[in-house]
């Protein structure tokens, strides 16, 4: 049994320190207080002084409380029995069922050797035209939903998870509203997906720092499954809460902030998590889909800004729709060449015309006269928003391509689309009377 310490010499923020010997960096400890037992992790060693971040928070910690070092760093079970279960960030069951202790693995393991990765080539079908057609999601992609609080990002996340043909879904909630948590759970249950899902839940009412463990446990479990050949989809919401917890610890530790109080290593911290997304050469894959809420809808805020530099594009959710501008899947060209041969042509043409529609709207609002061309665009823009952007649209890619052609034919002459002639001959709807 490891040594127990009874003298806490400092409590500041959610960090405590004790004088102890033989303690190693990142080691776990249990802090027992009147409120119960909390996990804590060593975040700094200085001579015989040990600093610990207390996951349940330091509220109520008394200087003579007990600190017991566990002689190991954070571990989580990687067993198949996790499927269908719900845990908190520390891996403790939240579903009143027994704890799982077999096949324990360390969290926050090393990076994948780049030479063991392959170029991703498989598309994840979501039946959402704004994704499948315009910004295809690719297996092993890491991509956030950028959005302001109040948008239906969690619904979108749940919907993609239901639609995606993956072996395992790992859901990590950070600072999630309890209602949202229930919605996730019920959605998964309704679709019979609960049995292939593992949930690590930290809700808004849980101690703030406890959410720091969520991405690491979720990704460690995913990695173990992927190594067994499974395609895993990881959902993490909300990474802004996670970043804010990092900020809180950094400030407590008196680290010099870089931007708006966030620590200078925010980029590295986020990257270490996002880069777990991988398509293994000779095993399964991890796709990481997250939510990053943007305070004040400001993309230059440090959290979305650092995220954008790390991820492979983003889905920009605004007013309940995925905006074509501001959204980008950087991996789409890996897959949209092999779907249907009109995919890229429809994608480019429809976006270009939608951009023209936006300009026309601006001209209209400034009171300039509308030409015949402008009127065509106005008709098109409305149809585009209805048929493609509305999130209630739920159709396979082939169908959205067909609807794309139909919409073009209803609004424009062939030549006005700028699509190559042989493509027009093959796909332009025959029965429609053109505008």
């Amino acid at each position, binding site marked *: 049994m490891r040594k127990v310490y009874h003298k806490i010499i400092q409590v500041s923020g959610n960090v405590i320190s004790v004088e102890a010997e033989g303690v190693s960096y990142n080691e776990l400890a249990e802090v027992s207080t009147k409120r119960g037992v909390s996990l804590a992790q060593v975040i700094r060693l200085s001579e015989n002084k040990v600093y610990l971040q207390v996951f349940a928070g330091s509220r109520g910690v008394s200087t003579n409380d007990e600190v017991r070092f566990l002689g190991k760093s954070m571990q989580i079970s990687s067993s198949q029995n996790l499927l269908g279960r719900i845990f908190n960030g520390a891996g403790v069951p939240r579903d009143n069922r027994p704890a799982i202790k077999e096949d324990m693995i360390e969290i926050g393991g090393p990076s994948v050797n780049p030479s063991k990765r392959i170029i991703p080539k498989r598309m994840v079908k979501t039946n959402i035209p704004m994704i499948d057609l315009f910004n295809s999601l690719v297996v092993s992609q890491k991509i956030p939903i950028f959005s302001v609080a109040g948008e239906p990002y969690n619904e979108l996340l749940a919907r993609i998870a239901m639609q995606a043909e993956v072996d395992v879904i790992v859901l990590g909630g950070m600072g999630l509203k309890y209602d949202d948590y229930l919605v996730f759970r019920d959605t998964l249950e309704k679709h019979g997906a609960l049995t292939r899902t593992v949930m690590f839940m930290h809700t808004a009412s849980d101690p703030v720092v406890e959410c720091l463990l969520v991405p690491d446990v979720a990704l460690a479990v995913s990695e173990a499954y992927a190594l067994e050949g499974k395609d895993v989809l990881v959902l993490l919401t909300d990474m802004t809460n996670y970043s804010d917890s990092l900020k809180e610890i950094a400030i407590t530790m008196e680290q010099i902030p*870089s931007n708006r109080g966030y620590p200078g290593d925010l980029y590295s911290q986020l990257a270490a998590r996002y*880069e777990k997304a991988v398509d293994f050469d000779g095993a399964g894959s991890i796709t990481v889909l997250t939510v990053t809420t943007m305070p004040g809808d400001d993309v*230059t805020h440090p959290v979305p800004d650092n995220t954008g530099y790390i991820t492979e594009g983003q889905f920009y959710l605004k007013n309940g729709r995925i905006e074509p501008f501001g959204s980008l899947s950087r991996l789409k060209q890996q897959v949209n060449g092999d779907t249907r041969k009109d995919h890229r042509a429809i994608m480019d043409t429809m976006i270009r015309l939608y951009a023209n529609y936006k300009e026309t709207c601006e001209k209209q609002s400034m009171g*300039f006269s509308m030409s015949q061309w402008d009127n065509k665009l106005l008709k098109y823009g409305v149809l585009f928003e209805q048929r493609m952007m509305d999130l209630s649209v739920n159709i396979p890619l082939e169908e959205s391509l067909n609807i794309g052609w139909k919409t073009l034919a209803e609004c424009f002459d062939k030549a006005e689309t700028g699509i190559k002639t042989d493509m027009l001959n093959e796909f332009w709807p025959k029965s429609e009377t053109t505008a």
Partner: protein
Amino acid sequence: MPETNQGRIVGVNGNMITVKFDTFVTQNEVAYAILGDKRLKCEVIRVRGSNADLQVFESTNGLTVGDIVSFTGELLSVELGPGLLTMVYDGLQNPLDQLAKKSGFFLERGVYLPALDQNAKWDFTPSVKADDSISAGDYLGSVPEGIYTHYICAPFDLQGTWKIESISPAGSYTIKDKIASVKSEKGNVRELTMSQKWPVKIPIKCYREKLLPEKTLITQQRIIDTFFPVAVGGTFCTPGPFGAGKTVLQHAISQHAQTDVVIVCACGERAGEVVEILKEYPHLEDPRTGRSLMERSIIICNTSSMPVAAREASVYTAITLAEYYRQMGLNALLLADSTSRWAQALREMSGRLEEIPGEEGFPAYLESLIASFYERAGLVKLNNGKLGSVTVGGAVSPAGGNFEEPVTQATLKVVGCFLGLSKQRADSRRFPSIHPLESWSHYTSLVDKEDIAKARKMLRRGMEVNQMMNVVGEEGTSTDDYVIYLKSEFLDSVYLQQNTFDPVDGASDADRQIHVFKKTIFVLDSKFSFKAKEDARQFFMGLRQMFIDWNYLKFGSDKFKYQEDHINSRLKELANA
């Protein structure tokens, strides 16, 4: 005696450890923290009293106060010798393929492998004989390395003149075989092999003089070579917000630049982007040699989730390899993506050292570090009279896309060419998204200066007209102004923009640029008279399409000439009308 010089850990803070040492330490020397059967590589970055602060190139998980640290007495170094080309290394020059063979999927900490194949045989031909005098950097002989003659250089740290005591005859040797022994004036003897070590943070300076970079480095990107050229031996930077196209541009340059050796340093960016290089370059042909692109490339990758301290080292590793090939009289191009991640690594370490921070938490010495890094670029005349060069291009990732931040500003002070990537241009799919009005270059363009001035003026006036039109509408704009706007848009779409992913349009060589630019200028110079704006718009739309089609045709081919005739007659038609 290295192993006896030891210390013990007294503090651990992230990837920094504080060590109480027994005897003495040297700034920047390498040490190993002993963790069970693992040895974790570190570098001394500060010494205070009998304590030294070390950055650890690995995760510090599990280190304990009291653990042993053993100092090596050697500065952080790379191994230089034949076999560097085609290699893929991490920031500390560990070969990634070999690591994968040894450790599998993950980068296990504490595993270090020799950078160069110790058993490969190289056909050595000596170029010196016994009793010859040599000094640092002189060639002792050469071996063929893929497409180049790899000169075996006398150690770059030789002081003064030495005499060849013996030199091996022509034959096949490994890099560990002794090939020469040399003797100093004082009588010291050194045995030499085909490889040598060099500390990465010290520039290799075995040359006679540094020259002014004058020749344009052909990147085959029209907007660069024509408007904002890079010079052979010069420096440039490409700042831009996320998604603006920095990485795509660097990849394009690394493929198409007309240079001998390309070193790609993926520094703190995505692993996926490196994988694209690793998997694709071996299958891409370098038109200059007809061989795979990989044969002229070295990839250094310390991606964003790999240890941060090794990220800091990676840019130095990369530039040292570039300097090494410069010593052979070759032109090396180093592309670093992104230097901001290197600066952030410095910031993290500076924070742990509790130094007084400058702007945005960056250390106060950031500017001088960036300056001395870019200063290692240059065109040089070697002691043997040959010319060699290192050209450096760095991507910069400014927070919030705002160029007023410390890394961008410090970089702009020292580089010779600024290619500012614009979010707006990227959003409107105008690639490469280099801003044609804000960027600048001090180097010489492929084409006539006056033509450039003319073209830039057209772009500026076109933008002004466009802004005006947004206020008063098309109706309120004169036809003459409208034509200026159309001309500037024409120049933008047919010349500044380029389809990076098209095999023909993506690479435009010097002759082609000169030829096409002349025709473009001719259009800008021409006075057209149009009855109405709509006629003008139609005309330029048509002309634009003809030029774009022309851009996709192989230079000098029959189809290219045919299309040119077609363009000429269309232009003549309008002049006659």
